């Protein structure tokens, strides 16, 4: 073979892997027959409403695609043709309630939001008063304080538990892992009851915000620990070996090499923990309860928080108080999203991951 390039003949670039006109045509025909079949199903069976039409359409697409690929028999098997449809349909089905939920909260929540909503508390107003007086500043601050203290307690403990399981891998590692798994199944009200009976009844003798933080910390701990464990497991042994081979002790290897490597992962673990507890209501009703005005007194006073504010507003049950509940829910969701974004930005910076 004497392949020596002499002249270059002009070539036009093309994309043979893209859909051709023929496949587009097949897709159109599929879609058409699916729609016909779906309408037939919708009309002649018990399927009803938008959801009924959606279900019958998904079923029709699968059936039609299976038939078409069986008849034409070009290339792909029936399974290959139908599987993407099943996956996409599953994804769309999962997204429906999610979008519906966010949409409803935004739609009903924006009504009660005005600038004063973020700067006033409810000291001189009742839940039922018009939506242009009173606000949730006390509940926002309360949630930030209670969840913040819970994070300060639970995140280090969770990460330490994960370090014990992965880095030290001591004799009790399996037991600790079993405990964290069991803890993640604890109902939130049980965490509240536990703190109520051990801290409030026996030590403080009255409800306070710190007890709320403790209850949330109990719920946060397993989430942080298990996620951190998964993150730490990803660090390759070669990285640890490199550090040991440079004469580093295990402590310095963990602090200087392993933890910086997984910084963004540990921050994610903490965010997941925060997101897990930020909306918890039951444990707070038993511990920090609700307070109408702004306070930072952790130990001697009950404290408002967004979930308990929503709970209170719902119990009042008037039109205005329900609107307040929706608005506070919207703010709660926004805060969790905002915190996640901030933490992502902090964690993503200079971690060395591409």
């Amino acid at each position, binding site marked *: 073979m004497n392949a020596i390039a002499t002249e270059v003949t002009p070539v036009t670039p093309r994309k043979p892997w893209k859909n051709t006109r023929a496949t587009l045509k097949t897709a159109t025909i599929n879609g058409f027959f699916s729609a016909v079949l779906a309408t037939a199903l919708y009309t002649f069976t018990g399927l009803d409403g938008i959801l009924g039409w959606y279900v019958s359409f998904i079923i029709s697409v699968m059936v039609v695609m299976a038939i078409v690929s069986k008849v034409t028999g070009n290339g792909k098997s029936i399974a290959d043709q139908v599987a993407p449809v099943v996956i996409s349909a599953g994804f769309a089905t999962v997204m429906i309630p999610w979008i519906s939920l966010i949409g409803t909260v935004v739609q009903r929540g924006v009504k009660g939001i005005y600038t004063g909503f973020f700067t006033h508390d409810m000291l001189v107003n009742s839940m039922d008063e018009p939506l242009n007086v009173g606000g949730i500043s006390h509940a926002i601050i309360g949630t930030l304080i209670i969840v913040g203290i819970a994070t300060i307690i639970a995140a280090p403990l969770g990460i330490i538990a994960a370090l014990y399981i992965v880095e030290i*891998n001591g004799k009790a590692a399996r037991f600790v892992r079993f405990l964290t798994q069991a803890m993640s199944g604890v109902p939130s009200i049980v965490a509240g009851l536990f703190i109520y009976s051990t801290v409030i009844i026996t030590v403080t003798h009255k409800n306070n915000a710190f007890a709320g933080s403790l209850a949330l910390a109990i719920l946060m701990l397993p989430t942080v620990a298990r996620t951190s464990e998964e993150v730490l497991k990803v660090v*390759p042994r*070669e*990285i*640890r*070996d*490199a*550090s*040991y*081979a*440079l*004469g*580093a*002790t295990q402590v*310095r*290897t963990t602090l*200087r*090499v392993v933890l*910086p*490597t997984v*910084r963004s992962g540990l921050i994610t673990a903490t965010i997941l923990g925060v997101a897990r507890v930020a909306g918890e209501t039951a444990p707070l009703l038993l511990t920090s309860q609700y307070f109408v005005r702004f306070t930072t007194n952790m130990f001697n006073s009950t404290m408002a928080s967004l979930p308990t504010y929503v709970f209170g507003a719902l119990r009042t049950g008037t039109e205005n108080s329900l609107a307040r509940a929706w608005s506070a829910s919207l703010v709660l969701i926004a805060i969790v999203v905002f915190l996640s974004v901030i933490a992502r930005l902090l964690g993503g910076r*200079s*971690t*060395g*991951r*591409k």
Partner: protein
Amino acid sequence: MSDSISTDSTTESFVPSITPNVASVTTEHTSRNAENLEVNGTTTGLEARGVHAWFDKHHALEDVSIHFPQNTVTGLIGPSGCGKSTFLRLLNRMHEFIPKSAMAGEVLFNGEDMYASHVNATDIRTRIGMVFQKPNPFPAMTIGENVLAGPKLAKKKVENPDDLLEECLTRAGLWKEVKDRLKAQGSSLSGGQQQRLCIARALALKPEVLLLDEPCSALDPGSTLRVEETIVQLSQSMTIVIVTHNMQQASRVSDYCAFFLSDGGPGRLIEADLTTNMFSNPKDERTANYVQGRFG
């Protein structure tokens, strides 16, 4: 294997014999080392005496005795699974990080058993550097931080970090390529550059011995050549032990070669000698077969 040569069963240190007429035909490499051999009888360099290794109940390495003279390059060769890497990791106490591992025998470093109870393992590792098969720069550190990670992790004070940085990168043959981007992530380098970065990182602790575990197995020929040049240069001031699967590489860079083999049981040291002898006139038939590429 019971009838194999004496190195298998002796617990005396193996010192490659060298005769004047052999030295006269050796390359400039080995003639340089002829001086070193004269101090063999004393306590310099690194010496393994009757070393065994186990992983749980699996006996991986059996009765290896060998001496690595100071400022020489020794290549450890042999088929996969014959215990070369295990042996290498025993030489700077990295073996013990593998759960359920065990060892027997002595490894003398400047005459002292590094497995003696009073010896501090982390101190040994700062004096005996190691470069691994897969380039493993620290992902959360820049190029500069990677090089200086050793002194920092081992809590050693560095008088002039910038000078040390330049010196190590120059000796590893990487300075020209990275001097303008020392603040870039170590992982942004190519595979070959990353491996030289790992060599530079090992050099920052000024080790007396450098252990390399197939350092070029993931590299292209150009990078391999540069790493080999680096190894030859470094051997002027430190003892180097290199595990390699590449016979050409072993013959290019090493002064001595040691051939390991496992017959299904634990790996053993079959033969060790001057590299020129190992390749031209091996004593054991299996060595001859291996270096000529007839198996493994």
